[in-house]
């Protein structure tokens, strides 16, 4: 487990994550706008508006620009014949080993944002856990799903 896994996820993941983050950030921006309007209409205290505005800027920068890049840089996976090896995390680096014989099923998923960039995520379930590799190109994701599904042969005596 000393070396990190070698495969990276699609670079478009950053864009997809950015869009998701911006959609969430829209909430604080709407609050900011409401605050500004209220300030002019009913003389809502300016300092509160200023704080909301500052929070909007900082959180947008962090969630939409900083985190997706860092997250993408860290995300690695590797599929061996006997096991799957996943690494992710920004501050906390997490590395997971999933033996092939423990895999119960694999599936690929694609939401509207992932679809825009022709991406898909692969989720791998064991009897106890579920692991997701986000944002692979659609083709690789399907390939990976089929590969894992053929390699995964659940033990006779499992569970």
């Amino acid at each position, binding site marked *: 487990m000393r070396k990190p896994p070698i495969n990276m996820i699609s670079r478009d993941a950053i864009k997809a994550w950015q869009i998701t983050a911006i959609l969430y950030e829209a909430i604080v921006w709407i609050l900011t706008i409401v605050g500004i309007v209220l300030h002019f209409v009913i003389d809502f205290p300016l300092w509160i508006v200023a704080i909301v505005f500052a929070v909007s800027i900082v959180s947008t920068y962090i969630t939409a620009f900083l985190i997706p890049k860092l997250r993408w840089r860290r995300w690695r996976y590797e599929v061996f014949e006997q096991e799957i090896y996943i690494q992710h995390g920004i501050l*906390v680096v997490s590395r997971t*080993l999933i033996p092939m014989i423990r895999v119960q099923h694999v599936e690929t998923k694609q939401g509207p944002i992932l679809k825009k960039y022709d991406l898909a995520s692969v989720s791998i379930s064991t*009897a106890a856990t579920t692991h997701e590799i986000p944002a692979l190109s659609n083709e690789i994701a399907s390939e990976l799903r089929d590969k894992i599904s053929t390699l995964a042969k659940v033990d006779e005596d499992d569970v």
Partner: protein
Amino acid sequence: MSEPSRLHPATVIFNLVKGIKDSFFLFVIAFVSLINLHILYAILMIVVLVLIIAIASFVSWQRFTYHVEGDELKLEYGVFIRKKRYISKNRVQSIDLTQNLLHRIFKLVKVEIETAGTGAEAEASLNAVTLMQGKALRTELKTLGEVEQLEENHEEKHPARTITRKRLIITGATSGSIGVILAIAGAVSSELSRFIPSDFYDNAYSWVVGLGIIILVMMIIGVFILLWVLGIVGTIIKYWNFTIEKVEEDIVITCGLLEKKHITIPMKRIQAVGYVESLIRQPLGYATVIAEIAGGSNQKGEDFSTVLFPIMKKSEIDNFLTELLPNYTVNQTDFTKLPKRSAKYYLFRTVVPSLVLLIAALYFLPQLTWIPVAILGLSILLGLLQVKDSGYALEDNKLTIRYRNFNKVTMVMNHKRIQAFNKKQHILHRKEKLATIKLSIVGKMGLGKHYHVKELDLEAANKMADWYSYRGV
């Protein structure tokens, strides 16, 4: 048992009783709303409701059949929607036979068959069959092959353990609730004396009030003692004559005074075995032996794990496991502890919440500061105990881990039962070469159960990863 058979007719009565109990509110509402009209209407309404429930329980009894065919248990049930449920023998996790008082009058038994599936309910639940049928069903569904069954006639002595009366009482007396009770009783009694000003006893009137407070304190203490005794009685009823036996490839547990339980667990289905030393039992040298079994329903707020033996001297555990579960003996010798540098993380986690409490107390209730100060002291102690106790041992295909939240837990799991291995490091961990590991196995209700050992030496975590990995080093 290839012919589909019904449950015992007494099921109708059981269902009726249960139906009335469940719709008790409906009865109350119907009765109250009609009593103003005329008492007869109200009684008529009740009769009608009972009749409806009676008919429903009769029909559902009539529609419920079960039989074993080949390798499967087949259930057919449902009144409006016919349902068929087939459960493969190979997937059966445990077979429980339970008898409550009603069952015992009719010499019946409730059979619950569990698989690893998700959900709080047992996959197959036969409310009432005769004891004979119940036992026959159990032998049929047991996973062992037919050749082995023939050998059962030899009547060889199976390894078994039964709880003694004395131990049973100790179990009750040291059950979790006592600690909480003692703490509350201590806090309340010392607090109350502070609320009584010293000049209170100056005149007769106040003396009576003072007496009242003393009586109040006595009563509170009395209530706690009563709760404690009730706890003991409850434990005695629950674990009465607790016996664990190894029959061929199954673990059979029987216990209970009013409600007799009979649980059969195929050994193959056990995911992990270990023991818990609670804060009260640890100083007395006692521990509870538990097992993690996949699936199963979560009954009555049990703390998720299956109890293999309610109480046992720590020194007896080795012997017990060697005899009953030789695959799960605890490796005590090669235990690797945590490095000293991980202590600060443990202390940080336990101390910070109590520090917050202390600051809050200083601000809001300065006269009660001693409580958070005491909690702070205890949390430092807890943190130190947590580091001291945590560790792991690797041996062939077996991994033993030990950790403490409040209670000290030692778990043994086999390589092939671990579903996934996870290693986590944050920035400070990376600098100090520490890592937290997470082991996932299948737990109750088909959910994952995760065990963490925090802040292991990085070397150790890597060693465990290599042990777990199928790629080799």
